């Protein structure tokens, strides 16, 4: 099947408006007889479910958590971008579009990104109207902060909990519709298959995670807002339950999977501390507004810091290497995430790491504390040269800005970041790849849609900070509810979809078979054993730097691990009860397939772009080197084993933006 991205004709700035004007609508009376399933209740799924219900569709929403409010969007800290230009610093829809395409290393679809930038301003208005308590300045107007990879301040925030507040906004919109009976909410339900009837997505099979019951749910369309697959690395900043299963089952049913190898490794995470670590904790990128990243200049100092014989505060200013400021004077500590992560890795690989494992760099607020302290002393008419006073005032300012993050750091690491620099290291955070969708967010399966992180569409090879929230809400509030109508307008006479068809039966049977095989396997090793091993392979061979040899090894190793998994996995308990190990087994089984496709995609993409860095393709300065012949989206078609997947290419055209070398120097 040839890929048709269905990008509307006409000038870039008018595409979305023209498209909205032309697509078919469903009249309000008919919407009442149309059902839509939404899987996942994060920013994308939650906002889509709420909006579809407001429009009049009957929505069934599913989440595996015990409440829609717990979706992992809640953990996003820093903020949400919008081209409001409230700061008057030259921001515009075009500039947000430009920054996003450039930040994505020219591997995203122009029309989608422009639309994203266009609706970004509506998101802020909508959220304010919903009662999201965005930070305000003393004049009562919305405040902004700046984020990596851009030269304007366009990030709206609610302390360090922006994702939480936006999700609670979407959740409240959902609650209103649940209360009205327009959304039927299924908590603690996990989607285990998509049901395709006559070539169209017509329902899903779910497992009730409390009772273990396998259920059939039908609808006229299915929307996946099931998030990203960063947990394929086992250790990531994703939630423990975040998984690829919904997306992978869709892939197996015919949805192409795009750019699986595009993974964002976030530079500012708390370093790994030991073997029993279950997840990594992100420290918001907003910290890079004020924190300076450095390692010792001298190798002997680095060694001494690693052995804890030298305190970082004892290292003189001239013996510190502020490597981001050194390498990228224009953007300094605010270079995009992929660039910052690789630079940290480069220093640590060279032996300059600053914790016991040598895999950490400092994020230092000492100079910010002094700068703010002096500012405050000046404002209050106090002595700017009084060091302890300046220190105290400065710490107060830093506390008001990042207090909750500092507190979190202290709880986890047991060190006071006001006194000694934080230690950070990159960690897997976000996956730009995902289910391939066209301009309407429809996958290659008619009637199956993907929104938010689950799709691949807007971030190219690297996502800019504060853009995930923007994309999730743009898709859910402002894009999908329009575009899905175009598809559903053909379904007004279809009537309810029966779940008694052979397609539902077959899908349910498959699900039951897999569950039974896990329960009856009686192997020797728990699920986590395999997940951890998969994670190690992924991190070592498909992580921040990749090469042909290791990727080939990874493919072999993952494939072998998958075989071992099916032979040796031990799932305790029964199928028809609350059984977390059973749920995990299903998720890890899918990760074991995705991981291989991931490596294969990375192997095929013989260039470096954004989060995908191939050691064979770098400039002499060690920067990522894109190749013109790879200016396409890799969309993989499922054909059994991952090694048999077929590559389809969607060529990316840049008509409104000049494809340049991406430089932050």
């Amino acid at each position, binding site marked *: 099947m040839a890929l048709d991205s269905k990008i509307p004709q006409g000038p870039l700035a008018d595409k979305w408006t023209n498209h909205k004007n032309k697509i078919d609508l469903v009249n309000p009376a008919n919407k009442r007889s149309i059902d839509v399933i939404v899987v996942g209740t994060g920013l994308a799924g939650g*906002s889509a479910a*709420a*909006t579809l219900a*407001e429009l009049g569709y009957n929505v069934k929403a599913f989440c595996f*958590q*015990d*409440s*829609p*409010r*717990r*979706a*992992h969007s*809640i*953990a996003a800290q820093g903020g949400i971008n919008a081209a*409001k230009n409230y700061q008057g610093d030259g921001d515009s829809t075009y500039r947000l579009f430009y920054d996003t395409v450039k930040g994505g290393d020219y591997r995203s679809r122009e029309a989608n990104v422009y639309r994203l930038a266009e609706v970004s301003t509506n998101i802020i*208005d*909508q*959220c*304010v*109207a*919903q*009662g999201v*308590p*965005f930070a*305000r*300045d003393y004049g*009562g107007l*919305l405040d902004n902060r700046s984020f990596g990879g851009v030269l304007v301040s366009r990030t709206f925030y609610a302390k360090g*909990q922006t994702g*939480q*507040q936006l999700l609670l906004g979407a959740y*409240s*919109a959902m*609650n*209103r519709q*649940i209360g009205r009976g327009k959304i039927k909410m299924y*908590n603690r339900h996990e989607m285990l298959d998509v049901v395709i009837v006559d070539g169209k997505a017509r329902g899903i099979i779910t497992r009730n995670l*409390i009772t273990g019951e396998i259920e059939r749910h039908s609808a006229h369309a299915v929307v996946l807002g099931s998030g990203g697959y960063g947990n394929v690395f086992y250790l990531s900043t994703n*939630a*423990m*339950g975040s998984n690829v299963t919904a997306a992978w089952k869709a892939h197996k049913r015919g949805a192409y999977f795009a750019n699986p190898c595009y993974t964002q490794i976030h530079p500012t995470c708390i370093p790994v*501390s*030991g073997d*029993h670590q*279950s*997840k990594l904790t*992100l420290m918001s990128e907003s910290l890079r507004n004020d924190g300076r990243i450095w390692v010792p200049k001298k190798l002997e100092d680095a060694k001494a810091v690693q052995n804890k014989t030298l305190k970082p505060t004892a290292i003189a200013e001239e013996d510190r290497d502020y490597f981001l400021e050194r390498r990228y004077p224009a953007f300094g500590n605010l270079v995009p995430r992929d660039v910052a992560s690789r630079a940290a890795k480069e220093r640590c690989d060279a032996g300059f790491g600053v914790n016991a494992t040598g895999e950490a760099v400092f994020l230092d607020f000492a100079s910010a504390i002094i700068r703010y302290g002096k500012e405050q002393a000046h404002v209050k008419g106090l002595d700017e040269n009084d060091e302890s006073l300046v220190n105290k005032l400065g710490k107060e300012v830093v506390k008001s800005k990042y207090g909750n993050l500092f507190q*979190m750091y202290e*709880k*986890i690491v*047991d060190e006071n970041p006001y006194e000694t620099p934080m230690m950070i290291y990159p960690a897997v955070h976000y996956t730009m790849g995902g289910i391939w969708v066209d301009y309407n967010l429809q996958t290659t399966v008619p009637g199956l849609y993907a929104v938010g992180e689950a799709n691949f569409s807007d971030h190219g090879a690297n996502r800019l900070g504060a853009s995930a929230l923007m994309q999730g809400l743009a898709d859910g509030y402002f894009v999908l509810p329009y575009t899905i109508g175009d598809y559903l307008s053909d379904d007004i006479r279809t009537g309810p979809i029966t779940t008694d068809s052979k397609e539902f039966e077959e899908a349910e049977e498959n699900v039951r078979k897999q569950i039974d095989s896990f329960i009856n396997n009686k192997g020797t*090793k*728990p699920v*986590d054993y395999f997940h951890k091993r998969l994670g190690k392979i992924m991190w070592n061979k498909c992580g921040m730097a990749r090469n042909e040899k290791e990727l080939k090894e990874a493919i072999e190793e993952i494939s072998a691990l998958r075989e071992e998994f099916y032979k040796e996995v*031990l799932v*305790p308990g029964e199928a028809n*009860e*609350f059984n*977390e*190990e059973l749920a995990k087994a299903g998720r890890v089984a899918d990760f074991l397939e995705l991981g291989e496709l991931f490596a294969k995609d990375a192997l095929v993409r013989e260039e470096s772009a954004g989060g995908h860095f191939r050691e064979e393709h770098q400039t002499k300065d060690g920067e990522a080197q894109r190749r013109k012949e790879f200016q396409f989206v890799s969309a993989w078609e499922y054909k059994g084993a991952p090694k048999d997947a077929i590559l389809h290419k969607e060529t990316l055209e840049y008509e409104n933006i000049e494809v340049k070398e991406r430089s932050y120097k």
Partner: protein
Amino acid sequence: MNLTLKIWRQKNANSKGEIVEYPISDISPDISFLEMLDVLNSQLIPAGEEPVAFDHDCREGICGSCSLYINGEAHGPDRRVTTCQLHMRKFKDGDTIFIEPFRANAFPVVKDLVVDRSAFDRIQQAGGFISINTSGNTQDGNAIPISKHAADEAMDAATCIGCGACVASCKNSSAMLFVGAKVSQYALLPQGQVEAADRVQNMVAQMDLEGFGNCTNTGACEVECPKGISLENIARMNRELVKASLKG
């Protein structure tokens, strides 16, 4: 560290549960409490025993999934943390640790340490929202200036993660800190004024219907709340309810 764990085990909602003792050894003080439970489970599974079920997801203190009543306190002995952020360095070698589910009739046990907190969802469905449809032409976000003070206070209330520690810690199983926080967030913002009276009445009515107890101002909720939600929010809710009732 070597520890003795005394954990509530209960097969499902209908069965009777009991405290079961598990010794565990070689626990690093640097791992989190839930990672300690992971270690226990990784030992139970190969031994043919059922792993201990507990709710958890983000493991960074924001999703509100994790719960646990540890040695008689919601989220354990540390302050301003959820269980997932509680680290073993807060315990001593040789300690006996009681681990129980959050208890309240409104939070029935699902299995072991997992409880059903959907009562919170239903309270929010009763009115915890502003009735505004999604449209591309809502008024500009800056159209109504909101004082920084009010915005910050609303944010402090909105920071609630819905974990239920307030209910679990309260001797009356009262949910007023949770409801008060949500009522407060909207009561403090101009956007929330239009529906303010209906909101507080409907949410309080639903709260009572769910079987939560009444508040006697012991303040335990505020102390145990991992997000430090203030009792002021309960006072504000009380005022809002009086105002709403006087309006009729």
